[in-house]
Structure formats: structure tokens, C-alpha cells
């Protein structure tokens, strides 16, 4: 990313007024003792004037993040969110008003911030992160995630890490998350620091109960609620999936659980407990969101300006007993399926059959493979060693030329019991 020196400096922006950036400029115009060597004084020497930053999520964290970024001097902010505003969002998500109920969060949040902070462009996208492709994501210099779903974060992380590898330049991800009084903010520099996938085993496991307990020996109200939605719902509604956002569905689960609890003389079923168990969420607290969002934006600001070193790489926060933070370096997992060093360029004779290629792999001393299974990165099977049914159906490929199954430059994903995870071969056919 090259600096565009013709970009208008912060002080001369026609929409600016005297002193607008007085606070920030104290930090940007002067070098501090903890600054990175690459720091150059002046707003125009930072990335702020031309940085495109992407915010994922316009909910509790997202609203705070958008506001903070705009006030911090970011000019070109994009936001993605697939939800529309519900009444229940109004108390925490302060960019929304009762009259916005039913409208897309991303669009309303973008409008609000644009109207409030002069000179900021906020571009919303109302839809799924998966709708967008690499061409979209590669325009950004920083990505901030304010999500509450593990799955969406894994997708976002994998997408940005892969993209960074392809571009040969890391797009930093700043990830924030909160659960009640607890939260975390972290900085992910793809392939340099640990990534979201590396830390997957740090996640709290959602509470579940043995299915025989919920079926036969319920003791807690939670057991009755799980009975209602795990066992009874599919029985009564067959193919209709339970929608955890639909109050009528929750109401049904609540009533079924209440009845069961009555039978077993178990007290304590409430509507909100039902909601909590079914959605498996700990309610968000506005102040935790404010803290974590601000911590994330502070990192974005430091990264874009090099005015202070950025977080390396994880801050945990707990607020139920005093104020507690723990800042540490989370270690990269060498065999991480997303950011691990598992990609190798290989030159392959274009006349080789798949079988010859596999033999060559097995003899390759630095690979140490015994029974490699091969698939292309777009999910086409080349040869799989097991299970038998897949082995049989891919066996005919062994005699085919590799060049008839893949194209020059394609990636092959190799798994083998000797590999901790997988090996990605980028094949040049010669």
C-alpha cells in the first residue's frame, strides 16, 4: 500500500473547522518514545486519509466501532451486516431509533454516522459476509470484526488470511467479542501472529446435557427446556426448523418446558431462561461492548498511524470483580489449518499419472507421506485412500494424467495420517 501524497491533509479539509482534530493531532504531529521507527509526523503521513476499513457487524459492538472510527479520523468506512433492526436492539445499539425498526442495521448505522461526523463516508452492505468475494475484501487495509458467531468469525478469518497469503501482504484483522462482563480484543496479522482458528480450542464450550438426562431424569429447568427444543420440537414440527429469533417458537418451547417441569416438580422455568438456553447466549452488557469496541478501534488507530505499538496480540477483560485485563501473546499454531505453514510449491511433470504423482509424493523425503489422499481446493476428488466407497470411485483416476484433472497453478489439498493437518501443494505442470 503506497502512500498517496496528494491526499488532502486533515487540517485543510474543507469540511473541517478550526481545532477539529486538536486532540488527535497532538499524538500524530509529535513522535513519542514508544513509537515505531516507521512513524512520520503529521496526519498526511498516516494511513488515515486513504485507509479503507471494513467493519463486520453493526450490532452492539458494531455501532460503537463505527462511531469510534469516525471520530478517530478514518474517512472511508465500510460496514456489512445481514440483520434488520428489531425492537429489542434499541436499548443497546445507540445508532438506532424506534422509527428505524425493520430497516437494515448496516444502512441505518451508516446514515447515522455519516450525518454526525462531517467528511466521513460510510458505505453499508446489507447482506452476508459470504456474498462478497476476494476482489471485494482485498480493497481494505484493516478489517474489524464485531460479531457474535463463531462460524462467521472462522469464515472471515480464513478468508482474510488466505487473501493475505495470496496478496503477499497482510491485512490486519482486529477481532472483538463480548459475553456478559467478559470480553476480548485481539490483533491478528495474518501468518505473522496467531489467527482466530489457532485459538479455537480456547473457546468456551456451550453447555449441553446428556440426551438421556433430558429424556428421562431431568433435574434442572434447563433440562426441561432442552427436552422441549431438542426432542419435542422435531417430533411435533417434523421438518420445520426451530427459529431461535422467532418469539412464537420460543413461546412454544417455553410452554412445553413449563409443562414438563410441572410433571417433574421442577421450579424455575422462565421465558428469559428459555431464550437463554435455546439461543445459548449470555446477554450483552452495553458497557462491556463500549470497552471492547474502544479497545479494538484504539488498535486500528495505532496500526493506521504507527503512533504507538499495536497490541501483540490478545487482551482479555473481565469486569464482574473490579477491573481486570490480561494482555498476552497468543501463540501461533504451527499446524493451524488456516494460517499454518502448510503450503508448498511443487513442479510436476505434466505427463505423470496420478499414481506416479502419488508415488513421487511418498518418496519425497521432506514430505514423509504414507497414504496421501488428494483433493483439489475446489472440492474435487483426485484420489482418496478411504473410506472404501470413495476409494473405489476415485480409483479410476489413478491411471489418468494429473494434467487432465487439474490446471497449472491449482492447489491440491493433501491429507495423510502422518500430517498433523494438511499440506497444500501449489502445482506447476512442467
Amino acid at each position, binding site marked *: 500500500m503506497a502512500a498517496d501524497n496528494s491526499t488532502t491533509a486533515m487540517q485543510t479539509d474543507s469540511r473541517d473547522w478550526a481545532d477539529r482534530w486538536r486532540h488527535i493531532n497532538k499524538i500524530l504531529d509529535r513522535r513519542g518514545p514508544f513509537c515505531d521507527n516507521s512513524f512520520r509526523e503529521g496526519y498526511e503521513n498516516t494511513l488515515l486519509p486513504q485507509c479503507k476499513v471494513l467493519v463486520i457487524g453493526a450490532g452492539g459492538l458494531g455501532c460503537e466501532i463505527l462511531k469510534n472510527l469516525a471520530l478517530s479520523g478514518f474517512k472511508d468506512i465500510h460496514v456489512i451486516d445481514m440483520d434488520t433492526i428489531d425492537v429489542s436492539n434499541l436499548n443497546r445499539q445507540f445508532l438506532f431509533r424506534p422509527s428505524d425498526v425493520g430497516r437494515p442495521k448496516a444502512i441505518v448505522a451508516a446514515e447515522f454516522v455519516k450525518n454526525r461526523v462531517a467528511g466521513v463516508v460510510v458505505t453499508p452492505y446489507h447482506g452476508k459476509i459470504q456474498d462478497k468475494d476476494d476482489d471485494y475484501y482485498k480493497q481494505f487495509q484493516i478489517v474489524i470484526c464485531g460479531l457474535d458467531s463463531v462460524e462467521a468469525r472462522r469464515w472471515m478469518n480464513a478468508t482474510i488470511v488466505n487473501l493475505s*497469503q*495470496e496478496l503477499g501482504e497482510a491485512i490486519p484483522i482486529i477481532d472483538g467479542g463480548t459475553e456478559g462482563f467478559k470480553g476480548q480484543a485481539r490483533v491478528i496479522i495474518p501468518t505473522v501472529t496467531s489467527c482466530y482458528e489457532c485459538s479455537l480450542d480456547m473457546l468456551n464450550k456451550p453447555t*449441553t446435557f446428556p440426551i438421556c438426562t433430558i429424556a428421562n431424569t431431568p433435574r434442572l429447568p434447563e433440562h426441561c427446556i432442552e427436552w422441549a427444543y431438542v426432542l419435542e420440537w422435531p417430533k411435533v414440527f417434523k421438518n420445520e426448523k426451530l427459529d431461535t429469533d422467532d418469539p412464537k417458537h420460543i413461546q412454544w418451547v417455553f410452554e412445553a418446558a413449563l409443562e414438563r417441569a410441572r410433571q417433574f416438580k421442577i421450579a424455575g422455568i422462565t421465558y428469559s431462561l428459555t431464550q437463554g438456553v435455546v439461543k445459548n447466549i449470555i446477554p450483552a452488557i452495553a458497557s462491556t461492548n463500549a470497552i471492547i469496541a474502544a479497545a479494538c478501534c484504539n488498535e486500528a488507530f495505532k496500526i493506521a498511524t504507527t503512533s504507538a505499538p499495536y497490541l501483540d496480540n490478545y487482551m482479555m477483560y473481565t469486569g464482574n470483580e473490579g477491573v481486570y485485563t490480561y494482555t498476552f501473546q497468543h501463540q501461533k499454531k504451527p499446524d493451524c489449518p488456516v494460517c499454518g505453514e502448510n503450503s508448498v510449491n511443487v513442479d510436476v511433470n505434466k505427463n505423470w499419472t496420478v499414481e506416479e504423482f502419488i508415488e513421487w509424493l511418498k518418496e519425497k523425503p521432506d514430505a514423509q507421506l504414507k497414504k496421501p489422499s488428494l483433493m483439489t481446493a475446489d472440492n474435487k476428488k483426485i484420489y482418496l485412500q478411504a473410506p472404501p466407497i470413495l476409494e473405489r470411485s476415485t480409483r479410476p483416476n489413478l491411471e489418468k494424467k494429473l494434467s487432465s484433472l487439474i490446471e497449472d497453478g491449482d492447489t491440491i489439498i493433501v491429507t495423510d495420517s502422518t500430517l498433523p493437518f494438511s499440506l497444500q501443494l501449489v502445482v506447476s505442470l512442467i
Partner: protein
Amino acid sequence: MLKIWSIKKDNAQAEKKKPKVSAAQIRVQKDLTELELPSTMEMSFPDESDLLNFNLSIEPDEGFYKGGVFRFTFNINNNYPHEPPKVRGIQKIYHPNIDLDGNVCLNILREDWKPVLNLNSVIVGLQYLFLEPNAEDPLHKDAAEDLRTNRKSFEYNVKQSMRGRDVKGNYYDNVMAKN
């Protein structure tokens, strides 16, 4: 100025787009291709291009359930292995740990699932259920009670049920192997 983190390029031909493959996908490839299926089990894929959804059949060669073929569906979502695979029986069978709707009471499918476990662990667990049904933590209470109080009667009822006959007023699916 922004610090640039230059990293090793994945591919000289960067303009060629690398199709995205999710960590869950790769993990399933690894799990599947390292499966050691005993001869008593068989897998099938309704759609061979989709490795995340498949069927497994178990034909126990000893124990109460010898002679039957028991079919299960496996559904794996993109949050694997953070979340366990969803496993469900597709026949109505008489088993202490499987209810009439096909729910399976196996600890590693719910409360004891960990990402370090894999499809092999689940399959081994399922097989064990047919060799050693657990009567002490029942899901199908009648079947469990039967097994606890009178193994002979249980054995007889299992055989009846496997042939599609009625046991205590409930008709079960005929699951006998066709050979």
C-alpha cells in the same frame, strides 16, 4: 506510515484465484480418508461431491443385534470440529440408547464432544452401542428396563423388533440384512 507486513506469497500466479476451502472441509477430508472402517460398516454418499453429509450402516457381527443392518445419517456443518457431527438413526429400532425418533445417546455426540475427537471416535462409539447397549443410562426406557431385568427376554424382543414385529405394542422397522 503504515507498517507493511510482507509475507511469503502463496503462489507466483497470484492473479489466478484460489478457490476457498474451509477448515471444516479439510478436516472432514482428513477424518474421512483416515477412517479405518471395520468390515461391519459401510458408508454411502447421497451426493459424492458433498463430503459433509453421508450415511453409515452398521451390521454387527456379534451381540444382540447380530443380523441387522442399522443406518445412520451424519450431518457435519461448517463449524466442525467446533461443533460435533449430527448423527441420527433412520430406522425405528428397539435399543436402550436410541429412541424411537432416532436420537442417539452417546456422550461424545453432545456433552463430551471435543475438537480433538474425530469421525473415527464417533463411529467407534456407535459400534460399541450395538455390542454393549448401556441399560443404566437409558434413552429408550422400556428397552433398558427389559435388558436390566431379563437379558433373555431382551434378546428375544430385539430379535422380534429387528424382524419388524411388534414389541409391547410398538412396531419396529425390519432391519434384517438381505442375504
